[in-house]
């Protein structure tokens, strides 16, 4: 790699780091400075008395939204990747077809239905929405873990074994690092979808960025809906672009081109 191309590459990555930062800054600005945009919202929604959502502090809602998505993501990643690894091992291979189908089935369940069904069992609040997000977000992660691990060149695994690595070492030092980009893509899809889906939690008493949207729909206040939508979209863009940067970073180390 010549000096010039190396520096060009460096620039590309650092420029990309700006993107999530930009979204994050925009998000922060909106959270803090929403009242400042009152005139803009007044232009959109002329009827209502109030245009800026103030039944709860926006940063609190953001915090709860992030918490809900984060907890669901953490659990799904652990469970999903572990399940994917378990069924690709020698002993677990019997369960591979079932787990694959199960994850696929999980995405057929509409989140709103799962949410509704979770309420009688788990009560109102954040727990049912976390469960719904977990179920819905499991498929991309499991499917991508399976694909990633299966895509690892079997001769490399054989060479690793032949060198004298224990199965655990082969998994940790060879299979997982090589499958990481694909798994990460799955996590990215799962989290990004969940950020939007979490808004439904507002219907079951999980207070988050979906609150303004529901309130807006119920009261016919478009400004509220816009605020909620804007914040969620900014959050999604921020998280998605951060994942994108990390993916590029990983891909550089393994680039086949």
């Amino acid at each position, binding site marked *: 790699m010549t000096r010039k191309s190396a520096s060009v590459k460096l620039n590309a990555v650092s420029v990309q780091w700006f993107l999530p930062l930009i979204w994050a800054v925009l998000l922060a600005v909106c959270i803090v400075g929403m009242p400042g945009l009152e005139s803009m919202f007044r232009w959109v929604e002329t009827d209502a008395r109030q245009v800026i959502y103030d039944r709860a502090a926006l940063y609190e809602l953001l915090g709860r939204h992030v918490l809900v998505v984060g907890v669901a993501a953490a659990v799904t990643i652990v469970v999903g990747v572990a399940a994917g690894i378990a069924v690709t091992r020698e002993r677990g291979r019997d369960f591979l077809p079932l787990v694959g189908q199960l994850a696929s089935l999980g995405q057929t369940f509409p989140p709103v239905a799962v949410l509704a069904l979770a309420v009688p069992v788990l009560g109102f609040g954040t727990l049912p929405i976390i469960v719904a997000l977990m179920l819905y977000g499991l498929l991309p992660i499991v499917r991508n873990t399976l694909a990633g691990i299966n895509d690892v*060149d079997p001769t*490399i695994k054989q*060479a690793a074994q032949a*060198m*004298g*690595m224990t199965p655990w070492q082969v998994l940790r030092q060879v299979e997982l*690092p090589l499958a990481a980009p694909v798994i990460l893509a799955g996590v990215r899809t799962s989290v990004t979808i969940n950020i939007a889906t979490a808004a439904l939690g507002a219907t079951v008493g999980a207070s988050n960025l979906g609150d303004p949207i529901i309130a807006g729909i119920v009261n016919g206040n478009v400004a509220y809906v816009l605020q909620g939508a804007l914040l969620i979209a900014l959050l999604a863009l921020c998280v998605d672009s951060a994942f994108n940067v990390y993916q590029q970073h990983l891909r550089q180390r*393994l680039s086949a081109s």
Partner: protein
Amino acid sequence: MIELSHVSKQFGDDIAVDDITLRVAKGKLCALVGTSGCGKSTTLRMINRLIDHSSGDIILDGQAIEQYDSVKLRRRIGYVIQSTGLFPHWSVARNIGLVPRLLKWPAAEISARVEELMGLLGLPVDEFAHKYPHQLSGGQAQRVGVARALAADPDILLMDEPFGALDPITREKLQDELAKLQARLHKTIVFVTHDMDEALRLADQLVVMRDGRIVQQGTPLALLQHPADPFVESLLGGLERGLKQAALTRVKDHMTSLGPTLPAQSRIPADFTLRQALSMMLRDHCDRLTVVDQNDVPIGELSLRRIVKEAQLDKVSQRDA
């Protein structure tokens, strides 16, 4: 020292390896040759227990193979495969240092050893240490593969068609380097290939396999002169056997001292093979060559008659033995 005694391997109803008995002496290169599916790769993989044999005994350095812990065993045996099996997410240096790291060598020792091996395999450290496998050519990648296999200084090296995926020029170069390496290091090597010329070139001991059985084993010269059956003969080149035999003998072993007549025009270095001598005679339309040493000083003579007669003499001497 590797010893296989009546070893068989069965996959379900399919007998991949059928009752083979083989002995590889220490420091020698044993080549397993045969067509695809004859069981040579399976045999190789039974030695480092990637596959467990169904019956018979495999003994390494006096101990039955089952008594070794398979993971520890593999760290003591080097393994080179056709597709290199290099880890794409690790640099060349890290790939080579794999087994020393598994054996928990101190870091300084590991980097010293990596540098040593890269030098041995003709890979300049500055240029290659931080490259990644996808940035290497086929030949370079396989050199790294060999370096990785040698890293922990194993006594035994298993090579499964290591040069099969390379172009002929690179293949020849690497064969040369392996021969030189072997002359220096004297590892016990089991080498699987379907390329007879490669086997004839490198092997101290040649084993021909077919349908899971050993058809013939011995030195390359012995097999060339006395193939056991038409299959082996055709494998060895049929009519070409004569030339292949000539390729195994050095000019210096068959030259005569300088005679009173004028030295021949064409000169041939003493350590070239008889085959190259024949080729030179055909090329230059002569039947006499002057043999020279490294400094281009004539040290002997070689005639066509001598070459043909020597071949005959070899055969005679074999029969008498």
